[in-house]
C-alpha cells in the first residue's frame, strides 16, 4: 500500500475495486465504515453484490473483466470536464499526452456498453473521485487475478496520478494483499528476479554485494516463476521441487496440471504443518513449525513489519529456519544462525529499505518500511513529493476482454473468491470447529432469474463444468450475482473450484485468471 490503514478512515472518498473487504480484510473494512461515518463517500466497484457494496454510497456493478475499460472511461470524463490536476501532472509525471490520446476513444457511451454501467453513474463516480480533497483507491484479488492484472493495476495508478490523489495522507493506490505475509515474501526476495528489497539480480553491483556477503558466486540469470516451474516439471526441465508452507495443488488454477507437474519430478519435498493435497504427492514431507512456535516478523499490507513471538516449542522439534540451515550445511554451505533475530539483522544489513529496522525497535507498533536508518520513524506514506522512479509514468492502456468468454456450450461466467469463515484453501480454518460449522460445504451462487429458468431451487445440487473439469455443488440462489454469472468459493478440498478455473496468465505478472472463466451449469436429480 502507498498509505496506511488508519488514513482510510479520514479520506473524503474511497474507491474500493475488486475487494470483498468485509470478508477478506475485516479489520480494514472497519476503516471504510468509519470513513462513511466521518462524512466520506464510499464507492465500491465489484461485479458481485457483496456486504461492503451494500453499505456503499455507490455500487458500480460492472461486467467481469472490464476494469480497464471502466477506468479509462472515468479518466475520459475527468479529462473532458477539466477535473484533472494539471499542476500535479506537470510537476510530477510524464506520458500524459499518450494517456489522453488513448482514453479519448473511451466515450461514456462506449464504456457503458462494454461494462454495463450507465453513463450517469460513470459521471458521478468520476466527479467524486477527482474532486474530493482526498481520494484513496483500495484493491484486492478482484483486480489482480486476471489475464490483464498488470494493466488493471497500472490503470488505477493512472487514475490516481491524473487527479493528484497520491503522495498525500488518505490518498494513494492501496493493494490489500491476499495472504498474511505476501508483502514479506516479496520483500525478502521470494521472487525469481530480485534479491531482498527488490534489488534486481541482473544488476552486477547488486550481485557483487550479495556474493560478498554470502561468500558464494551467484547466478546472473533471472529464474523461473511458479507457473513456469510447473511447466518445467512437465517438460522434464525441472527435476526437483521444494515447497514451504503452500498448497499449490489446491490453490493453483487448473489444479490437476499442478499435481501432474509435481508427480513428474524426481524429487519433491514439501514442508508443511498439516497434510494437504500437495504433501500427498511429495517424496518427502517435513513437519513445519507454525507461527506460535517461532520468533520472527510478518509484514502486513501497509508495509508494517511486526513481531511474531514464540509461545510454545516447535511441535516437531525444529523451526523452519533450522531445517533449511541443517540442509544447507549438509550441502556444503554451512549456516550458523542462532536465532531468527540474527537472520533478520543479516537481511537488514543487505537491504537499504530495512536498514533502520531491528527487533528492539519493533515492540508493539511495528515499523513501515522504507526505514533507511535507526533514527528514521518509518514511512506510512509512499511517493511524497516525488515518485520512487522520479517522475510518475502514465501508461496508455487499451481494454482487452478476458481470455475466456461464455459461448453456447459454456454459457455462464464463473468467478471465484473467499467466504467469511475460511481462509484460502482452508487448511487451517477448516480445522477450527467454530469456523467449519459456519460453512461446512461448497455452495455456488446463482441468480434467482437463472435458477427459475433452469428450475433449480436453493439447496439443490448442480454439476458445474468448464473446459478443464467438472464438479458437483450445492446452489445458493441469491442476487449477489447478476444473471448469467455464478460465484464459487475456493475453500473446499473435496470440490476444488480450481479444477474449473482458467490457467491463462497475465503476460507480465504471470497471475492466472482466477476471476473469470466460462462454465455450464446443469441440475442433478
Amino acid at each position, binding site marked *: 500500500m502507498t498509505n496506511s490503514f488508519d488514513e482510510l478512515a479520514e479520506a473524503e472518498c474511497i474507491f474500493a475495486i475488486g475487494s470483498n473487504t468485509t470478508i477478506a480484510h475485516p479489520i480494514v473494512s472497519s476503516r471504510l465504515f468509519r470513513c462513511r461515518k466521518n462524512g466520506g463517500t464510499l464507492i465500491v466497484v465489484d461485479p458481485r453484490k457483496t456486504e461492503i457494496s451494500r453499505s456503499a454510497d455507490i455500487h458500480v456493478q460492472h461486467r467481469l473483466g472490464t476494469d480497464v475499460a471502466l477506468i479509462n472511461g472515468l479518466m475520459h470524463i475527468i479529462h473532458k470536464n477539466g477535473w484533472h490536476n494539471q499542476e500535479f501532472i506537470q510537476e510530477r509525471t510524464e506520458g500524459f499526452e499518450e494517456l489522453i490520446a488513448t482514453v479519448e476513444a473511451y466515450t461514456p457511451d462506449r464504456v457503458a456498453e462494454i461494462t454495463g454501467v450507465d453513463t450517469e453513474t460513470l459521471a458521478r463516480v468520476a466527479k467524486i473521485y477527482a474532486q474530493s480533497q482526498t481520494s484513496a483507491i483500495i484493491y484486492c484479488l478482484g483486480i489482480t487475478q486476471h489475464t490483464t492484472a498488470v494493466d488493471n493495476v497500472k490503470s488505477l495508478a493512472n487514475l490516481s496520478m491524473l487527479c493528484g490523489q497520491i503522495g498525500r495522507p488518505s490518498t494513494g493506490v492501496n493493494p490489500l494483499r491476499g495472504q498474511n505475509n505476501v508483502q514479506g515474501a516479496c520483500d525478502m*526476495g521470494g521472487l525469481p528476479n530480485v534479491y531482498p528489497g527488490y534489488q534486481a539480480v541482473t544488476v552486477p553491483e547488486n550481485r557483487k554485494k550479495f556474493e560478498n556477503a554470502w561468500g558464494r558466486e551467484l547466478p546472473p540469470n533471472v529464474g523461473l516463476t511458479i507457473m513456469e516451474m510447473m511447466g518445467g516439471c512437465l517438460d522434464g526441465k525441472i527435476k526437483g521441487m521444494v515447497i514451504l508452507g503452500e498448497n499449490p495443488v489446491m490453490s493453483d488454477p487448473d489444479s490437476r496440471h499442478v499435481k501432474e507437474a509435481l508427480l513428474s519430478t524426481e524429487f519433491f519435498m514439501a514442508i508443511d504443518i498439516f497434510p494437504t493435497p500437495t504433501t500427498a504427492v511429495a517424496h518427502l514431507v517435513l513437519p513445519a513449525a507454525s507461527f506460535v512456535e517461532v520468533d520472527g516478523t510478518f509484514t502486513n499490507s501497509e508495509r508494517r513489519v511486526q513481531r511474531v513471538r514464540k509461545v510454545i516449542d516447535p511441535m516437531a522439534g525444529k523451526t523452519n529456519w533450522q531445517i533449511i540451515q541443517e540442509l544447507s550445511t549438509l550441502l556444503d554451505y554451512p549456516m550458523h544462525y542462532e536465532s531468527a533475530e540474527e537472520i533478520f539483522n543479516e537481511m537488514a544489513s543487505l537491504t537499504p529499505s530495512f536498514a533502520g529496522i531491528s527487533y528492539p525497535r519493533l515492540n508493539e507498533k511495528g515499523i513501515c518500511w522504507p526505514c533507511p536508518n535507526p533514527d528514521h520513524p518509518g514511512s506510512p506514506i509512499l511517493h511524497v513529493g516525488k515518485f520512487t522512479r522520479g517522475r510518475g509514468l502514465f501508461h496508455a492502456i487499451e481494454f482487452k476482454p478476458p481470455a475466456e468468454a461464455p459461448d453456447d456450450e459454456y454459457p455462464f461466467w464463473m468467478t471465484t473468491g473467499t467466504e467469511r469463515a475460511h481462509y484460502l484453501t482452508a487448511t487451517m480454518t477448516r480445522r477450527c470447529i467454530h469456523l467449519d460449522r459456519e460453512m461446512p460445504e461448497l455452495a455456488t451462487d446463482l441468480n434467482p432469474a437463472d435458477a427459475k429458468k433452469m428450475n433449480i431451487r436453493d439447496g439443490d445440487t448442480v454439476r458445474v463444468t468448464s473446459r478443464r473439469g467438472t464438479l458437483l455443488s450445492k446452489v445458493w440462489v441469491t442476487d449477489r450475482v447478476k444473471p448469467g454469472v455464478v460465484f464459487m468459493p475456493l475453500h473446499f478440498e473435496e470440490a476444488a473450484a480450481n479444477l474449473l478455473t482458467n490457467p491463462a496468465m497475465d503476460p507480465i505478472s504471470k497471475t492466472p485468471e482466477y476471476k473469470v472463466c466460462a462454465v455450464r451449469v446443469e441440475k442433478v436429480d
Partner: protein
Amino acid sequence: MECKWVQTTCPYCACGCGLILLAIDGEIVDTLPSRTSPTNKGTLCIKGWNVHEFVQHKDRLKKPLIRNGGSFRETSWDEALGYAARELRRIRDTYGPDAIGILTSARCTNEENYILQKFSRATLGTNNVDHCARL
C-alpha cells in the same frame, strides 16, 4: 501450572492484527486482541478470535514422512535431511542447479523466506525461487 501471555501477529490475512495468546502448561487455550496494536486497536475478526484452535490440532505433522510406494512411513530427522540433501545434490550435479525450483511462502515469516531464498541462490545456485502469491 505455567501460564503465559505472548503478544504476536495474526497469521491469516494481511491486516496483520496484533494478538495475545494464552498458553497454560504448553497448551494454547485462548486468544485476545491487542489494544496497543495500531492495526486492530483491541478488535479481531472471527478468524482471529479462533486462531488458537488450529495450532495444536491433532492432525499436525510431527515426524518427517518418506514416500514408500503408495503410502508414507515415519522417519527420523537425520534420515529425512540426509535423503533430501542426497537427492538435491544428485539433481544439481546431474542436471545443473536450474533443474531445481523453490517456492517460499507467503504464510511464513520474513526470516524463513529470507533463509530459503538464500538457500536457493547461494546453497543450490539457482534463481528459480518464487512464492504462491501470484495465485
